[in-house]
């Protein structure tokens, strides 16, 4: 006799509450594949947990972003933000699509060089460049974005000693009408620090200040902040060109575009709330189109957006280890991927799907990782169908920051694969082993 499909017995108390304004679909919607490749097959071949990237989503994202800006403004350049995801295959894909590299450390700089990026197409940001970093970048004719006065002084001295005139921008922070206002990086605009730095550069005449840079923050959900940023940066560029004679040719407006992830503090989901590339592009370019720079010069617009280009292209495939009932009655489902792999679970309510379709009765569940740490919680409270050991769980929107900020802690970091547009699956990174960990110890 053929056995029946099993579903864990489920008893859910009906708690009368006030009706909410927004309903939610409580039926499970299964996801059993990524770009046509079955999840079960991925687990069999590469193990669990497993990071999976979609080539088609990555290419679609960067093409959409470029189209949104280039159809509104003639000179737009994207530079791939290495810290968001510096797996070489991911970086190389963005470089293939025309993106330059935006790096914030000597390590990232070297990675970009090894990925074949011409050194004069590397933007060097970050608050902690060493003397060696600066020498390397100025000898490579990279664009050095100066963060502070001491760095300006060091770079100027090196330029004199080396007889090189490095191409630089200053990093500017400003009030774009959002909270928190990021004022930690670069020179402040409103207090006059940014102007002082530009005056020094102009009067000393050792550096070629070809750009201005500003990064107003991260996961910015209001496009008006970019409108304000653009207005202020365009005005500063105009002044720097006309009053100081600086050869400003580009405005780097940073990154910070939100992905469709859902912030923990948010009532609605990111899919409902977050602006599109078109929304951001319209806010920014509508300001710049009105500004007249000397000689009708068209300022090049540079973006270093990372999260919005990669987040939805990354998935974390995981397997259920067990279900446990807590003393207060809550259900804990333990999976084999923990917060050491998913740093972003501290910020987001990541979307979670299973392979169960159309299950009407779901249970509020705390989704935990396998670490022997109380903080190892992927989702505090998520409605899931009744899961059993070895069931697959897919965590969405994990492409940004996780494979750079992940930790080897209690468990090893797992394999990373990419589903190619032709349906092949390529291994991007091997799983760590004990030998890898021990190799660095003496």
């Amino acid at each position, binding site marked *: 006799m053929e*056995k*029946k*499909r*099993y*579903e*864990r*017995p*489920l*008893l*859910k*108390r*009906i708690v009368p509450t006030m009706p909410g304004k927004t309903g939610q679909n409580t039926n499970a919607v299964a996801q059993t594949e990524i770009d046509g490749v079955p999840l079960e097959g991925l687990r069999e071949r590469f193990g669990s947990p497993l990071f999976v990237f979609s080539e088609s989503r990555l290419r679609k994202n960067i093409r959409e972003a470029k189209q949104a800006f280039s159809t509104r403004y003639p000179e737009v350049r994207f530079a791939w933000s290495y810290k968001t995801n510096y797996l070489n295959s991911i970086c190389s894909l963005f470089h293939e699509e025309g993106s330059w590299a935006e790096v914030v450390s000597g390590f990232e700089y070297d990675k970009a060089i090894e990925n074949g990026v011409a050194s004069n197409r590397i933007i060097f940001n970050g608050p902690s460049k060493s003397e060696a970093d600066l020498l390397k970048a100025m000898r490579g004719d990279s664009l050095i974005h100066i963060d502070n006065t001491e760095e300006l002084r060091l770079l100027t001295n090196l330029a004199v000693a080396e007889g090189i005139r490095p191409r630089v921008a200053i990093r500017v922070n400003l009030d774009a009408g959002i909270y928190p206002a990021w004022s930690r990086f670069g020179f402040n605009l409103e207090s006059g620090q940014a102007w002082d730095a530009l005056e020094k550069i102009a009067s000393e005449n050792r550096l070629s200040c070809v750009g201005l840079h500003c990064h107003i923050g991260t996961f910015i959900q209001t496009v008006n902040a970019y409108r304000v940023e653009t207005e202020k940066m365009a005005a500063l560029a105009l002044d720097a060109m006309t009053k100081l004679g600086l050869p400003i040719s580009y405005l780097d407006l940073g990154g910070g575009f939100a992905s469709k992830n859902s912030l923990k503090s948010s009532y609605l989901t990111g899919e409902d709330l977050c602006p599109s590339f078109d929304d951001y592009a319209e806010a920014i370019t509508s300001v710049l189109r009105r500004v007249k720079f000397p000689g009708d010069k068209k300022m090049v617009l540079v973006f270093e957006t990372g999260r919005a280009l990669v987040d939805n292209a990354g998935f974390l495939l995981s397997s259920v280890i*067990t*279900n446990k*009932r807590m003393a207060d*009655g809550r*259900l804990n489902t333990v999976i084999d991927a923990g917060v050491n792999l998913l740093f972003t679970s501290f910020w987001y309510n990541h979307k979670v799907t299973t392979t169960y379709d159309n*299950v009407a*009765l779901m249970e509020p569940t705390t989704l935990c990782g396998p670490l022997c740490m109380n903080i190892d919680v992927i989702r505090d409270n998520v409605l899931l169908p*009744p899961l*059993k*050991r070895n069931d697959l769980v897919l965590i969405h929107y994990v492409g940004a920051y996780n494979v750079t900020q992940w930790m080897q802690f209690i468990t090893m970091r797992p394999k990373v694969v990419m589903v190619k547009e032709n349906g092949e699956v390529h291994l991007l990174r091997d799983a760590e082993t004990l030998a890898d960990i021990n190799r660095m110890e003496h």
Partner: protein
Amino acid sequence: MGLTSGMIINESGYVFNTLTGESFSINQTAKTVLSLLEQGRSKSEIYQQLLAEYEVDGSSLEADLDDFFYLLRKFRMLEG
């Protein structure tokens, strides 16, 4: 061990406990378990029957039944 009297279980998976005034939703497997309890079957008999009827391994079923019976006790649905 059996279900307390005063439990109303309908076909669509709605359960009402007249002793406590609480209502519950249950899925098909839970309905089968409650039905077997109503017939006076023991926990180990229920385990054996489900193991024979469903695609499930013994250790998962044991853990799931332990959890389910914990909830039945917590919501005062079990006698004895």
